[in-house]
């Protein structure tokens, strides 16, 4: 892990040493931190798990932000910069999966699942609203009900009523 970071940092430093002199000679206004963060916010570095690039404190991420600044200074658009990072490091740098291929599932499953849930709930509710037919009662339960002592029965129902109230 640490080796990957060092390697990444090294590569980025190399990139900067190549790009930096050109940017200085371009004499364009330097993009502000807020402009850089606006784009960095939507990107994730492949090394630091689940931390957006605008807030990641590592050196590698600071250098990535500088890279965004350079690209902005060179006149690149937001989309071009994002595409560049995707090309270099893969889809995982984007905050949400690009809607293509199997990734469609990430957008489709939640609404479909919720609709199915609503449907099941609706069906269950309809079936519960119908009173249970008497022949569905288990025979042994029906026996018990029939044979039980009326006084005892009254006692049980009072007891159950009490328990229910609590």
């Amino acid at each position, binding site marked *: 892990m640490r080796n990957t970071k060092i390697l990444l940092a090294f590569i980025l430093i190399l990139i900067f040493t190549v790009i930096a002199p050109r940017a200085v000679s371009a004499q364009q206004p330097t993009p*502000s*931190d*807020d402009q850089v*963060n606006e784009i960095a916010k*939507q990107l*994730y570095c492949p090394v630091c*798990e*689940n*931390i*957006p690039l*605008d*807030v990641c*404190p*590592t050196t590698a991420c*600071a250098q990535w932000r500088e890279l965004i600044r350079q690209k902005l200074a060179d006149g690149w658009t937001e989309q071009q910069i994002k595409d560049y990072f995707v090309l270099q490091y*893969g*889809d*995982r*740098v*984007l*905050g*949400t*999966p*690009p809607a*293509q*291929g*199997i*990734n469609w*599932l*990430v957008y489709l*499953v*939640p609404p479909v*699942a*919720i609709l199915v*849930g*609503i449907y099941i*709930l609706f069906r*269950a*509710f309809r079936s*519960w*609203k*119908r*009173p*249970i037919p008497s022949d569905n009662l288990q025979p042994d339960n029906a026996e018990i009900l029939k044979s039980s002592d009326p006084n005892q029965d009254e006692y049980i129902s009072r007891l159950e009523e*009490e*328990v*229910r109230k*609590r």
Partner: protein
Amino acid sequence: MVANLGYATLVITFLVSIYGAIAAFLGARRNSTSLVDSARNAMLLTFPLLTISALSIIYLLINGHYEVQYVTEVSSNNMPLYLKITALWGGQAGSLLFWSWLMSAFASAVTLRKWDRDREFLPWVILVCLITLAFFLMLSIFIENPFVSFWHSPTGNVASAMFRPAGTTLFIPQDGNGLNPLLRHPGMIIHPPMLYLGFVAFVIPYAFAMAALITRRTDARWIRLTRRWTIVAWLFLSLGLVLGMRWAYDVLGWGGYWGWDPVENSAFMPWLIGTAFLHSVIVQEKRGMLKQWNMVLIILTYDLVIFGTFLTRSGVLSSVHAFAQSAIGPLFFGFIGLTFVASLSLLSRRWNDLRSEGVMGSWFSREALFLLNNLLFFGLFIVIFWGVIFPILSEALGIVGQGIPALAGIFTGQKVTVGPQWYEGIVWLPFAGLLLLMGIAPLSTWQYSTAKTIGKAMWKPLVVSLLVFIPLLLRGFRSIPALLGFWMIAYVACVIIYEFWRAAWARHNARDENLLVAFWLMIGKNRRRYGGYIIHLGMVLMAVGILGIELFQTETQGTIPQGGQISLGQYTIKFDSLSVFDTEEGRNVARAVVSIYKDGNYIGELHPRRDYYYESQQPMTIAGVRSTPEDDLYVLLVDWQPLSTSAATFKIYHNPLIWWLWFGSIVFIIGSVVAAWPSKEPELLMVSKSIPETSKA
């Protein structure tokens, strides 16, 4: 020596657990009281044994026994004593043992209760608890052993092993790597134990549910027995989540409290299903319905608890490849699969015993609204679960799909990130639904409510809540989501206050009690209900904070020279000075002093800083925060010029109303404590009341 003692007790506990599980099973099958008692003793024995094991690690940590790998990984000479102790749960091996230790404590406590008329549950509860415990102990013994030591071979290689490999000598490093600096925050010290307590406590209701299924005692008895355990589990889990949020806000330095990180989500999922369970068991208790559903929910909660530990411990989150490299991932996966399938097949065998006793009276009855609540919680769970597993799934499918040329276009094989934008785009809807339900369900009655009766109960709080629009519009709020959100919050708050008022007023009139006394006694009489309402109130207050930060957070970043200024909205910060110094415990601190002005008036000073830990080579950003009920000003020191310290980069967040999130959490926890407060079992209370005075004497 101490490491050997710790390891030996771990192995003995494992054997005791296996023995206890077998004894419980045979005891139940053969109806043998002595075997069940023996199993119970085995269960009780696991706690002192694991205490010895846990104390052994703590001893090694405190005394700097760096020959033990775990001690080197998570502690160092210059760490204060309290951090050395809490390093027990600072790493993977230690935290797994800590999990087992808490599990044995809870399971022992539950076996100590009086079992009188629930004796048939006992062996099965022990069986489930001990199988779970044995699984975690197995991980500790065979895979994540915290007592492994370093050994030095004559060729100069250092290897780690539990027992001395032939021809090697013990290797003792001078110092350790130290605890991850991010974990040195007070919130992070208490956060894992709270979360783990919540996790292990949920095993108890699950164990009872399984016992109820096995023994065919499928009435609401198991729910009544575990009611308090469930609330306690939920309380700890909630506390763990809230502390984690606070920790993220204070330490992670991104101006927020929740990042939809898979680790956060893995603790949130059991909470969501646990919350659905807490609500739906009430329907079973009152109406004899949803019995099958409650079983599904508690099985799911249990497996989500294990899944949560699995996600954070298996390495599967970083990569499918990392998952395959260690045995811990597949073992967790297997255990979750096995318990899930076994529980569900048991449930299916008892499906008909769990048929509903009642019928649904109306679409607006309380049971119907509780069912809707369950749908929303479950929907939230599905969304989050999907967000968590999708990156893993897409990577895994990609590996398979890439091998088949026809599918290569569909299965990109690339790991993807499912970030906050995705979650936030979906979850607001079920959350809004839940908020609205909190304002409707308390006004409904069991069985008989109709749209008309609810409407009648709603109109007073509804009219009062509309008043909230006046200050909102006067202050210039025009955003529709904000207006709707704040109105809903106001409405729910009115309903809760109205409910409290109505009951206290009725009691005050009926019993001629002082209104405050009536209020107090009313809560005492029905702690679960009013505790629940206090929890709702806490939720509503938290919603104020969430709405504030989500809809109105602003930020800016800039580099300013000493004496320079940077503005955000009404606020201006002035960079006064910056000092860089080393501390005794191995930190390099860069601390800035900035003055804060609001509308041009000086209001105070903040000290954002960046700590760099030499041992672990990790930086840590500590924000300077000025927090008021109106808003938080959150200033981060992003960068500075190392030699002159004459200019520095600051990032400033303006977080409106976030204070209410923390205040609401406190109210929420108070509500949970009220609901969980022990009282006599209702049945016992009734029996003691019904006994005539003479017979009592």
